């Protein structure tokens, strides 16, 4: 089963073989979790939202139509993020604070860690749409072409927007 593509597995799931979802979960949950955590900087919420993504996939499994699975799951993750963000905005709570879940800090040499933290703070100052482009492209190393598919744009437009966002981020960073 391990050699099947994501798409093969998802089609199996859509046909009722739900155990295949475990393999997809193993392949994707860390990536999706990191996507949310970079967007929100909140571990607990990121876990909840990651859970929501997989629940949604299971619930709507029959609506999967053989497209690129990675694009599909990121599309779902983006929708869940934006629903969460809108809700938070309504409730006027600060999404950046409340990072309480105790997860072991990554051990890095002092200087590197400082730089990374500084980068995280800078990242949170970008707009959501700029931030997600940088998260997807730089952190998650998703190709321009695929980002274009996920956000419904063209490859060239994505490239230009990523470059602009990087420049903005650099100006905040320095």
């Amino acid at each position, binding site marked *: 089963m391990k050699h099947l593509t994501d798409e093969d597995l998802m089609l199996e799931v859509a046909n009722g073989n739900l155990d295949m979802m*475990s393999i997809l979960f193993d392949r994707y*949950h860390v990536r999706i*979790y990191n996507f949310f*955590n970079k967007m929100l900087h909140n571990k607990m919420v990121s*876990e909840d939202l990651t859970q929501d993504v997989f629940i949604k996939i299971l619930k709507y499994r029959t609506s999967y139509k053989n497209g690129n699975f990675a694009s599909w799951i990121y599309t779902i993750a983006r929708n869940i993020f934006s629903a969460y963000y809108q809700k938070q905005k309504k409730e006027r709570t600060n999404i950046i604070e409340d990072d309480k879940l105790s997860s072991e800090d*990554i051990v890095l040499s002092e200087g*590197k860690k400082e*730089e990374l933290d500084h*980068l995280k703070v800078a990242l949170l100052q970008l707009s959501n749409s700029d931030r997600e482009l940088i998260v997807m492209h730089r952190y998650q190393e998703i190709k321009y072409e695929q980002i274009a598919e996920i956000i419904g744009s063209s490859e060239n437009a994505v490239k230009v927007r990523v470059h602009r966002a990087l420049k903005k981020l*650099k100006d905040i960073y320095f």
Partner: protein
Amino acid sequence: MKCNDIENKLIGFIEGELTKQESSLIQNHIDSCSNCQDEVAQMKSFLGVFDADVEEMPSANLKMNFNTFLEQEKQQIKVVQLQPKTNWKSHLRIAASILIVVSAFLIGKHQSGESQLTIAEKQKIKEEKQVLALLENQSASKRIQAIDLSEEFTKTDTKIIDALINKLFNDKNVNVRLAAAEALSKFSSLEKVKAALIKSLETEKVSSMQIELIQILGKIQEKRALEPMRKLLEKQETPNYVKQELQYNIASLL
């Protein structure tokens, strides 16, 4: 080539995304421009920061919760497969549309003074039984579906209305209770329904339900709801947004 032309292509240049020709044009410029050299160096060191980033691992809870959910979902599939293969949904849809036609026909018949148990009436009793059965389904979405269907019945249909009132009070899922309240608002001319809505306002703890009930009772101008509304307004634990709704509707009832 000028610095401005290069500015927008710098990242592409560093990332090696440009054509050879473009790339060498930019390289030529950079070699002769110290400003751009600085810019390139700064951008390179900035992009390098990302490389130090390590993927974080979520806690073990995530996997555990997912497995629990997966098991539940698998159970559901089994339950669904045990049921007869006929598609309830489409049956009930057809049933509901037949019902509208039939009830229109029946109203006409009643007006002309006849009241025999016709085939259409027997059919209606059958539909009613189906909806009543579906209301007891263990899936909340099925129950809501049944409630939606029950709105097609007329207010003379006491069994359906009783079942809806029962859902309003006793269903453990708040969405089902909400749907029941909404459906009952269509039958609010009945004394029994009014009394149930007022009673529910007195006992209901969930604020979204409270708001729904307040709105319904305000809309039908039910003066007897004033008392429970005032009580709710005085309670300390009532959330502010519910209080706002209360103040607005109390004013309209006075």
